[in-house]
Structures are given as structure tokens and as C-alpha cells.
């Protein structure tokens, strides 16, 4: 669907992208992950032809992006908004028009989607009369009017309350069942973990982790210790036999070195803090994310 190869882009002396490559397969949900400032938005903007890369290629089904192909793409930018003073239905018809949908057809489709999201009552309202949640739904609808094959969503979950995060997640899932390809960027790992077939983790303009979510999780094993505790979390930094640890106030994910038994490890922990939960599972994506980013930073395992 989308092949990105060796993208490089610098802004002045800062290097935003340093050889980013990945491929998105048709019909999958692809997560573009990374901390703030990693280069996710730059990657997305280059993919859509909004800005030019210094070098590297972007191919859609083996071809370079051309004017006609733009009509089969959809893009939801980060920190998005709509024309505040215009009517909802007019804005939607305009956005359809931008992707070559004739006004009459755009209106029909817009009404269909508004109805589906129980918004048909506000079609003639001005955008700034709508609640934020409603505006976000309208924005999502604005991406669907031209029935795109590929949806690129930049931080679709940022700024959404928990209820609307679920609405957004359901919308993304529904698009997948309709055979659409979806790329979304996020730094919220829980969402990515629940949705993605494949992920690409970028940090400082470089790909640090890329592949199918299942494969990646298996690579990190199913022997990660998840523990909840009460007490001084900093005292756990002195634990021996740790390969990798992500430490929070009352929660930690740990992988122990070969040769250290869980039994021995737990004994150490119990002597330092009051353990309320101790389990062995596969690593969370959040933990993998932090480990990968930190490994990239220092060139080795680290304690968060």
C-alpha cells in the first residue's frame, strides 16, 4: 500500500528524519509510534506530499504520489480544527470537494455519516456551536466522504476524553473491517496495543523498532514480571540481577537476568517494599516502548 524508503529531512541544523523506512500493507492498522518530537508528524507530512523530503522515496502501490491519487487518501492532522464560523454541512461538503466529490454526492454522504453518529440535528449549526466531542466526530467524518483507501491519522486520540477515545477506536476498527488501510501516530501505547497489526517505533528520526505487534511482543518474551507495591519505589533501583526495568511510583515491569530466579528476585523485593501484586506475563507495549527508546539513547539496557 505505502512504501517508505530512507527518508531524510533536516530543518536547518536539526535532523528530523534520518533514514526512515517502513512498509504498510493493505488492510492493516499501522501504528507510527514514538515520543514527542521523534519525527512522526514529519514522516506523515512527507508521505502526504505536504512537504518534500531531502532524500528518500514514498511510493503508493509502487507509484509516486500524483494528483489523482490524492483523492484516495484521507488525512486528519494533529491539533485539528474546523472553520468555526461555517455550518457543519457546508464544511463537510467543502472537504468532500477538496477530494473531488461533487457537492450533491458529498451532501448525501455527509448526512449519512452525521446520522450514523447521531449528529444529523446539528447539520445546519455553526461549528463553534458544537461541543468538542461533536466537533471531533465531524472532523472524522470529513475524512470519510471521499471513501478513501488509506487513512492517515496524526495523534487521533490526543485531546479526546475517555468516552470519545472509545468512539475513535471503534471508528478506526470499523474502517478496517471495511477493508481500509489505516496509519495512525500516537505516543499513547495502550491505544496502539489494542488496535495495531503492525507498528513502527521512531525515535530521534530513526526507526528503533518495526514489525508485527505480535512478533515484537514475542521477541520481548512472555516472562516479564509485572508488580504492584506500596513503599519507596526508588529503593528498588538497588536490586541485583535485573536485565531491564521500567519503574513507576507503585508499579514496575522487570525482566531479570538469566541465572536469577523469580523466587530469589521476589525475596529481594519483599525485603524492600510491600508487594500487593506479582505476575509474570508478556511485556506491555508501553514498557517495550520505553526500553527501546532508552536502549537507543544509551546503547544498552536501562532503568527508567
Amino acid at each position, binding site marked *: 500500500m505505502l512504501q517508505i524508503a530512507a527518508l531524510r529531512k533536516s530543518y536547518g541544523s536539526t535532523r528530523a528524519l534520518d533514514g526512515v523506512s517502513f512498509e504498510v500493507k493493505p488492510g492493516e492498522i499501522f501504528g507510527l509510534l514514538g515520543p514527542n518530537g521523534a519525527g512522526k508528524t514529519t514522516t506523515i507530512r512527507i508521505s*502526504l506530499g*505536504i512537504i*518534500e523530503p531531502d532524500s528518500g522515496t514514498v511510493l503508493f502501490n509502487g507509484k509516486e504520489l500524483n*494528483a489523482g491519487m*490524492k483523492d484516495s487518501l484521507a*488525512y486528519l492532522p494533529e491539533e485539528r480544527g474546523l*472553520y*468555526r464560523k461555517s455550518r457543519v454541512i457546508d464544511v463537510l461538503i467543502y472537504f468532500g*470537494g477538496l477530494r473531488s466529490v461533487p457537492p450533491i454526492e458529498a451532501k448525501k454522504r455527509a448526512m449519512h455519516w452525521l446520522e450514523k453518529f447521531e449528529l444529523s440535528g446539528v447539520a445546519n449549526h455553526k461549528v463553534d456551536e458544537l461541543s468538542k466531542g461533536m466537533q471531533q466526530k465531524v472532523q472524522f467524518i470529513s475524512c470519510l466522504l471521499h471513501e478513501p483507501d488509506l487513512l492517515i491519522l496524526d495523534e487521533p486520540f490526543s485531546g479526546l476524553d475517555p468516552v470519545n477515545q472509545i468512539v475513535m477506536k471503534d471508528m478506526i476498527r470499523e474502517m478496517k473491517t471495511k477493508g481500509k488501510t489505516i496509519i495512525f501516530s500516537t505516543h499513547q501505547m495502550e491505544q496502539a496495543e489494542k488496535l495495531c497489526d503492525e507498528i513502527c517505533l521512531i525515535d530521534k528520526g530513526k526507526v528503533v523498532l518495526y514489525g508485527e505487534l505480535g512478533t515484537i511482543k514475542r521477541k520481548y518474551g512472555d516472562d516479564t514480571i509485572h508488580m504492584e507495591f506500596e513503599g519507596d519505589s526508588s529503593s528498588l533501583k538497588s536490586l541485583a540481577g535485573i536485565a531491564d526495568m521500567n519503574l513507576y511510583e507503585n508499579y514496575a515491569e522487570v525482566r531479570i537476568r538469566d541465572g536469577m530466579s523469580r523466587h530469589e528476585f521476589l525475596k529481594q523485593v519483599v525485603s524492600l517494599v510491600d508487594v500487593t501484586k506479582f505476575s509474570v506475563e508478556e511485556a506491555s507495549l508501553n514498557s517495550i516502548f520505553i526500553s527501546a527508546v532508552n536502549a537507543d539513547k544509551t546503547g544498552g539496557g536501562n532503568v527508567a
Partner: protein
Amino acid sequence: MSLKKALVVARWEFVEKVRTKTFIISLILMPVFIIVVSVVPSLLINKPSSTTINVGIIDKTGEIAPILDVNLLGKYKLPDGRPNYNVVVIPPGDSARTEANRMVLSNRLSSYIVVDTNIMSSRKFEYVSENVSNFKDISRLQSAVKDILVTNELQRNGIKPSIVKEVTRPVDLETVRLSKEGKEEKTQAGSGFILGYIFIIILAFFVVTSGQLLVRSVVEEKSNRIVEVLLSSMTADEIMTGKILGLSLLGLTQLAVWGAIAISFAGQLAAFITVPGSIWWEGVFFVLGFLFYSSIFVMAGAPVTTEQEAQQATTYVSMLLFLPIVLATMVAQNPSASYIKILSLIPLLTPTMMAFRIPIQTPDLWELIAGTLILIGSTYFCMIAAGRIFKIGILVYGKRPSLNDLVRWAMKKG
């Protein structure tokens, strides 16, 4: 470049802006403004007063006062037949002035004049009033006193009153404008000046309002990131073309409405303004000027992020438009002076200078053609530069680019 996408943008810009209150207000406000500025003052000055005005006179010669009454009375009447002026003679004396001042302050006199004994040699008299900007009354008194002096002097030299009367009759002047084609057109003096003024104001207003709308729509689209959606569905050139097209259409709508208003008022306007035959050149400079200034607004407006910066950017560009107004009197005095000709060929000034000069004295054909060519050339280059600046500028947030940055962007190809 696909015109189809540009037209989608043009349609949106037009329809959304036509509906705004700002547009509707400016649509009505401008003709009102023009009428107020150009027609109303002349109507008011020529409008006869409705009440008799009391004018005092302290006449130390004793020769002026008795005739002043007759002189003013005979000439100026109110519409209902009553005299326009009533002359109140104040006997000269030590307290005359104090007395007259008191009468003015208590509104029994609107003004008074003081004629000294040596008026024949000094050729001077005083006019005292709370308001000394009443040009109509002042000039009438001035000419009345002058007439009396001349009449008295002639009579003293033995010339018959009937001859004196004949000799001192006023002379009228009729202005005829000679067009480049050699056609004679009777016009009111100064009508070309007023028309030129109106053209500059309309062009400036037109450019500034659309320029502001353009900059504001770019700022809004930057702040809600719609600009990225636009850029992901078409090229920067298509967006810019669409915006300029839409706003031009908006401007044409405005002009059409104003034109209709002007035609419906044509009867009243014709008394003050005569439209010269070379008026169609005006249209050429209007269209080119609009496109040229639009591209400058695009350059100034694309990199700004906030409403406040937008305001500043548009103010600087607008100032360029009003420069010819500063030069207006100089142009009217001598429209074919060589420095005026040179100024008219500087692209930033060409549209307004030409728009102003055409109704006053149509410039030579070579000037019109040179101006047109220079403007076409500069518009072409500015549009290309504006397109490049727009492409980079609309993705710039926060830090305002320096002039150097703008030049660098403008030079950057692709």
C-alpha cells in the same frame, strides 16, 4: 495545476465570505462613505442658508456701511425671498468693539467687520466671529467690500454709476476638458480630481478588504491546521490561485453592487462628476493592480501565525496604497511633470497613480502601455515569488520569518 481544485477553493472562499457581516457592511459602507466624502460637502456649501444672518460693521470711513447693506441685500436672497444678510451698523467709537464682541457672544450678530479709515491704501479689513472657517460668508463679504471700494473710487473719478455697475459685473468661468482624442467635454472644475480620488479610494478599499480577508483566512487555516488538509489534497499553487480567484470574485460582486448604486444616483452625480472617455484604461489598472497587490498580500500574509501579526502585515501593505493620496495635490497641479511620470512607472505605485491621473489628464499612450507592461511583468514575478513564499510560509508556525528568509524562500525553486 488543476483548475478544478482551485475552483473548489475559490467557491468556498467566495460563498463563505459573501455571507459574513463584514462583507455586507463594507458593501453598504463604501458607497455611503464616497457619497459623504465627495458629494455632500459640495451640496452643503452650495445649499442656501435658511435664516437671515446678522452681520455687524464698524465703519470708520463712513463710506462702506450704507452701501454694504444694499450690496449684500441685492445679491443674496434666501429661498423664501427674505434677505440672506442683515447688516447692523455699529457706530464707531471707543466702546464699539467691546459692544460688537458682546453682540457676537450673545448671538445677536454672527460676525462683524471693522473697516479702518486707511482701507484705500492698506487694502485690509477685519472679520471677527466665533467661527472663522465660514468660507462662504467670508468670501462674500470680501467681494462685497472690494466691489464697494472699486465703485466708490470710480465714482469719485467721475464715472457714471450705470457704467460702474456694468464694469464690476462678475465673470464666470466654464471648464472644458480636452481628451486625448481631441474631444471637448464640458466639466465642473475639479471633477477629474474628485473622480481620481474616488478611484484611488475604491481601489485601495477593494485591495485592503480582500487582502485582509486573504490573510485572515490563511491565519485561520493555519491555526486549525486545515492548511495541511488542503495541502494533502492539492498543491500550494492551486490553493493560492483558488483564494485569489475567490476573493477577486468577491471584489467584482462589490464593484457590481457599487456600480448599480452609482448608476441609480447618476442624475445627482452628473452635476459634480464627468466621466472621461479614457475610462476603460482605469479598468486595466484596476484588474492588474488588484492582482499585483494580492500577490504582495500573499507574501506578507502566508508566514504570519496570529491575528495580531496579520493586522500588522496588512497595515504595512495598505500604507503603500495610500501614498498617491499624499501626492494628490501635486499630481493635480501638474499631472505630466516628469517626476510624476517616473513615480507612475514604479510598480508599487503604478496602479494607484494611473487610476488617479487618468480622470485628471489622461497620460500619454506610451505611458499607459509602459505602465501596463511593467505591471504585468511585476505581477507575474510577484505571483511566482508569492507562490513559493506561500508554499513554505503556510507551514511556518510561531517565529516570524525575517525579510532574509522571505527572500530566500522566494528564490527557492520547485
